[in-house]
């Protein structure tokens, strides 16, 4: 029972989504499939509560054990402040009237939006820009000509890197300009390999989905 029912649910849900595709657009199964796709985000909204509960629990456990206590307290304070402001004032840049706060401060700047723009966005953008440096060290230590394959990867990488530099566009090998070499790489091997990976991955996806729907692959549900 504990094991069979989930497998049956998976089978029915998956089969329905496949079969509905073959109905005409506008038919009931087709529409239902469209709605089911939207359900995912609703269910995920419930899971957000679970996930946040997990963050709070893990942080509290650590704080209690004295591991990084101050940091964990900062984390929790930031979490509750942001969450509280957002839940009460809404997530728009300007505060809207709501049943919670009535017309109080309606139309004012929303501090929740400030936190997003001045804390979360810059932190994310800076984390992102650290990549320049990681690329630097990876280029130095990892891009080694260990084999012919690695050599090809390196060769194309260097060609494309140089090809992006404006004055390198004047360079040429014999009659063939740097630009056209780069374009050839982008238009031929790049396209061919990407296509093969997409086709191969799509086959992997199709066969994996089929196995999940039929219950052949079920390790994610665990034992009894």
């Amino acid at each position, binding site marked *: 029972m504990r094991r069979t029912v989930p497998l049956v649910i998976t089978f029915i849900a998956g089969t329905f989504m496949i079969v509905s595709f073959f109905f005409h657009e506008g038919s009931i199964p087709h529409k239902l499939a469209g709605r089911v796709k939207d359900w995912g985000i609703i269910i995920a909204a419930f899971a957000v509560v679970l996930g946040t509960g997990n963050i709070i629990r893990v942080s509290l456990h650590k704080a209690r054990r004295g591991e990084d206590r101050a940091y964990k307290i900062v984390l929790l304070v930031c979490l509750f402040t942001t969450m509280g402001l957002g839940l009460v004032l809404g997530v728009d840049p300007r505060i809207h009237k709501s049943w919670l706060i009535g017309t109080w401060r309606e139309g004012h700047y929303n501090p929740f939006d400030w936190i997003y723009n001045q804390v979360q966005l810059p932190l994310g953008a800076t984390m992102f820009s650290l990549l320049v440096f990681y690329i630097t060290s990876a280029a130095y230590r990892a891009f080694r000509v260990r084999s012919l394959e690695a050599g090809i990867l390196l060769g194309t990488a260097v060609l494309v890197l140089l090809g992006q530099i404006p*004055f390198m566009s004047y360079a040429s090998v014999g009659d063939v300009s740097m630009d056209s070499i780069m374009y050839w790489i982008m238009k031929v091997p790049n396209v061919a390999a990407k296509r093969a990976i997409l086709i191969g991955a799509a086959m992997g996806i199709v066969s994996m989905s089929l196995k999940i729907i039929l219950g052949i692959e079920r390790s994610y549900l665990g034992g009894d």
Partner: protein
Amino acid sequence: MEWLSRIDRRWLYLVMAAVIIVPFLTQTTFKGPPSQSAKTIYHAIESLPPGAVVLVSADYDPGSEAEIYPMNVAIFHHLAHKDVRVICTQLWPQGRPLVEKALAKVYYPAGKKYGKDFVNLGYKSGGQLLINKMVESIRAPFPTDVFGTPVDRIPAMRGVESLKDVALVISLSAGTPGTKEWVQQAQAKLGFPLAAGVTAVTAPDIFPYLNTGQLIGILGGLRGAADYETLVDRPGRGVRGMGPQSTGHLLIVLFIVLGNIGYLLARRKAKGGDG
């Protein structure tokens, strides 16, 4: 030469930072001929008949502003000097303020009139489904512009019922939904010329469409922006970015070479020891 393979990574970081920051502060830059792809887009806009309608779909956000916004400005500069009508739409909600910024920077100073020469229809959700609808009708999903003016009362929209009435679509895209969706949902059906300005990361993924002729050209990353700024002779963030960008690229190539020299030396030494 032993030290080559034992350099602390922080020295590498420091050199990299210096190599980008110095040309950034001194505003050093490098110029070069624009790429073929940028020229194709330039000529496509150049050869538009007077009164033609161009749709600019700005599907990017602050995260990709550094790469796409300069392209947006450069393309607006070009369009503003032509006698064409521009319709702006956005598939990404965060795209709207960026387009408005670009319009404020280029269109109003050029003496163009909002509503007559250009119009911003704003953001609508739906991604590829939205594009799909626009093939049949632009007015159904966009009954008003961003100011709430009904489309029927906007002179710039006169005679524009669907994408069939558009002479050129420019997709400024940082991901999904973006250029790929424009090709699959609209270009494949109507065959209008489609130009793309994309982030460098997405550029390799849309090259297949250049092969099939579904895209007339691709502006990829900051270099694409610089190319277009050069073509319209309006150097901005793109051209100025080419300084740090070029030195950064050269340094990475140098590091790859140095790393390999260290590696080959170490290997030779290891071999010698065995023999």
